[in-house]
């Protein structure tokens, strides 16, 4: 679209947006509060959103806090990402039944859930993460039909961040806080002393159709400036930095840097960073059979380069030490990903920092290898 199509709606119209998406056959999923965090799950109505909640994040720490207003989107990303839906943790690839001396395949991969998903509340860093997974799983030599089946026909409602968390570093990775492409609609929440409105930007034909069903008004220049200010606030709040200058060669030329031993002292090899990462895509394949041996299934499950079985070949695991596993993960994410897929594998969402139980900070590790002092100023960099 050559020119931005924008409109303004009252915040209450998000209820209507959910209704419209339902009426168009979408299952709407988005942020909601569960287990003291904001997770992604089904949304039936506006009240299912984390209304009046915000999050405070630090390395190894996440806390939900009450706000004094009824803000709908004043928080950032939680422990889950959209890969929960696009690249699920467990997928059955097929099942088979024994027939005499041979066997018969009974089913193909689990079909995507009936009804397409509408993702409501996708942040700019998450749009970038989806684009990274698209590149890996759709646009390479081999396509993943499971991802494709779930990805096609998704309706994406992006949300521009108007505040950031201490773990965010999207500005370093060039992914946020403003969404520029890859959405059907993009929302910017505008909270004032006497108004609570949403600026909606249209990103697709179908997005325009959905907007037409909402009670909307033309956005004035003032409103657009207010939205720019709000997103600018998020941008200026971001303190964490990762200097990505020449990062590929930096990491390739530092495989023996002493910092890898240092981080290995702290790394639990628990795999949490890879599980929460919105771009980590590795899976393993597991064959299961029942005790009679007549029925068998093949499942695909999330795997992690932090497990020993991940690099197991004849004779043992290639990466038996924590040092080699952390180095593998970070070097792939930030360096060899560029050679492999043409971009960084990191979108700066900060999940691996927050959800590391011991608060290992990828930006601090890069900073240390670069030899610079800690890259994010006064922030906590874990428990060195």
């Amino acid at each position: 679209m050559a020119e931005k199509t924008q409109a303004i709606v009252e915040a209450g119209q998000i209820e209507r947006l959910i209704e419209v998406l339902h009426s168009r056959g979408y299952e709407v999923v988005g942020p909601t509060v569960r287990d003291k965090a904001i997770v992604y799950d089904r949304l039936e109505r506006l009240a299912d959103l984390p209304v009046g909640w915000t999050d405070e994040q630090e390395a190894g720490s996440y806390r939900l806090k009450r706000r004094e207003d009824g803000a709908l989107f004043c928080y950032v990303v939680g422990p889950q990402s959209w890969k929960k839906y696009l690249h699920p943790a467990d997928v059955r690839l097929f099942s088979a039944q024994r027939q005499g001396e041979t066997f018969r395949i009974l089913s193909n991969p689990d079909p995507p859930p009936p009804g397409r998903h509408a993702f409501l509340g996708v942040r700019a860093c998450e749009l970038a993460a989806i684009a990274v997974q698209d590149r890996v799983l759709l646009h390479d030599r081999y396509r993943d039909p499971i991802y494709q089946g779930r990805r096609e026909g998704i309706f994406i409602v992006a949300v521009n961040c108007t505040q950031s968390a201490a773990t965010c570093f999207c500005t370093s990775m060039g992914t946020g806080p403003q969404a520029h492409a890859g959405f059907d609609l993009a929302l910017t929440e505008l909270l004032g002393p006497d108004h609570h409105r949403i600026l909606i930007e249209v990103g697709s034909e179908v997005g325009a159709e959905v907007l037409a069903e909402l009670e909307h008004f033309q956005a004035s220049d003032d409103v657009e400036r207010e939205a720019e200010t709000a997103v600018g606030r998020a941008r200026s709040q971001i303190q964490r930095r990762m200097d990505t200058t020449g990062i590929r060669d930096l990491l390739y030329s530092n495989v023996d840097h002493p910092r890898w031993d240092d981080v290995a002292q702290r790394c639990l090899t628990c795999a949490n960073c890879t599980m929460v990462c919105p771009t980590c895509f590795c899976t393993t394949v597991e064959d299961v059979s029942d005790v009679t041996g007549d029925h068998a299934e093949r499942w695909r499950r999330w795997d992690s380069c932090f497990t020993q079985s991940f690099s197991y070949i004849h004779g043992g695991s290639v990466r038996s030490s924590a040092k080699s596993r952390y180095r593998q993960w970070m070097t792939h994410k930030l360096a060899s990903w560029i050679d492999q897929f043409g971009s960084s594998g990191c979108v700066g969402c900060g999940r691996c920092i927050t959800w590391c139980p011991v608060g290992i900070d990828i930006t601090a590790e890069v900073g240390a290898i670069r030899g610079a002092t800690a890259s994010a100023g006064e922030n906590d960099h874990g428990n060195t």
Partner: protein
Amino acid sequence: MKDKPRIAVFKFASCDGCQLSLLDAEDELLGVAEAVDIVYFPEASRTMLKGPYDIGLVEGSITTHHDAGRIQQVRRQCRTLITIGACATAGGIQALRNWKDVDEFVRVVYATPQYISTLKMSTPIAEHVPVDFELRGCPINKHQLIELITAMLAGRKPNIPAYSVCIECKRRGTVCIVVARGVACLGPVTQAGCGALCPSFDRGCYGCYGPMESPNTGSLTNQFRILGQSDQQISQSFRSYNAWAWQFRKASEECERA
């Protein structure tokens, strides 16, 4: 059709809970009973046929001279020996005696101490005889037990991962209670297998499945201190069902010394 494999179930020092997991697998038990002959299982049947056995399942730890001899007999009778549960694989909760004076316990607890004949230590089966597979847990997960038997019958590798409980939490969508609540949880250093049960009920992992494949107990201990745990509390959390597993043992002793 080949003869069905003969299975025997043996008990040493234990609570019987792991054997009960086999009986508790009601839905699968009929299939198991068709696929194998359970010929020695005193907990379940008075029919007790002599060995040799194709598969021996051993529950419990070694705590007496008598059992130290008996496990040698059991090993000789079983082509494949599988230990089941934290007692058999790590010495169990009764291994807490290993840090104490057992004779003192005996004098305090029993009216006639001279009737009691016991070893100073509770030790896992693998310290006495070679073991073919160790199935972890307190108690074991019945699905893992069925998986293990099924995989053996099919001649395939059992799907019993050695990675952390964290992976199970994340796959099922449980929010990390260490990060989101500041709860001390042993999940990052504990082997998966329970399906990450406790964290899904807001409780920290108790470490029932013992140390995972590469546990960094020192780093987790530091984090527990940051979360406000005392060294005594941390030491005690490592000293439960798998206290004598060497990585947990080292962790608890380091906290004790600190």
